[in-house]
């Protein structure tokens, strides 16, 4: 499913690239242990992306008449929405924590 505001150019969520360097490949961090926060975040974002793609597939099938599973499609959309909202909530927390630190007076 392509998330788009009315009129705005739509960017498929799969094209969002994972960020690097949040404890990943920076100097002094060569042997980063698996399961860093960045890895977990990337996995979570991939999960959200997969949900969106699954919902997208269902919608395409419904639109082309291949599959007329109405509630299955709605549930796939619902799952995609819940995971996306969860991701947004995590993003808000991360940004909040970052700003908290940036605003710290030294």
């Amino acid at each position: 499913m392509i998330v788009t505001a009315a009129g705005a150019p739509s960017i498929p969520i799969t094209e969002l690239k994972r960020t690097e360097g949040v404890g990943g490949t920076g100097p002094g961090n060569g042997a980063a242990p698996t399961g860093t926060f960045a890895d977990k975040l990337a996995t979570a974002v991939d999960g959200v992306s997969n949900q969106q793609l699954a919902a997208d597939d269902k919608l395409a099938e419904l639109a082309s008449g291949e599959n007329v599973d109405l509630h299955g499609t709605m549930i796939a959309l619902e799952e995609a929405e819940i995971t996306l909202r969860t991701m947004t909530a995590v993003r808000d927390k991360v940004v909040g924590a970052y700003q908290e630190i940036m605003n710290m007076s030294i």
Partner: protein
Amino acid sequence: MNLLDTLQITASGLTAQRLRLQTVASNMANARTTRTEEGGPYKKQTPLLEAVRDDPFGTDLDRAMSRVEVMGVVESDDPPVMVHDPGHPDADADGYVAYPNVNVLEEMVDLMTTARTYEANANVLDVTDTMATTALEIGR
């Protein structure tokens, strides 16, 4: 067991009710059908629902939860309704026509319970969504 599993269980309930609706539609449409491929009048179809463990290898709590699946559709063995109508092409030697063992009133009741059960499952879906929203607002 998370909220998305709940959605899957609800989805199975909705699917089961939709298939039930299909059998009701079939029974209603064929309420007066005197010919079938197998010969004889149409027979009332009833879906067979079965509870299937949602996650047989999960925790005790996961194993306690079941989805619903339609395992098959069974034909009713009730005798056909015999109506005296000698002019009918399918009348037997005594002038009786075998009509399906479908009772339209019973089908109407089935139709209503199917619609209500579907609604109830859709409500579970709404509540799941509300709970997810509430959970995401914790600490805001």
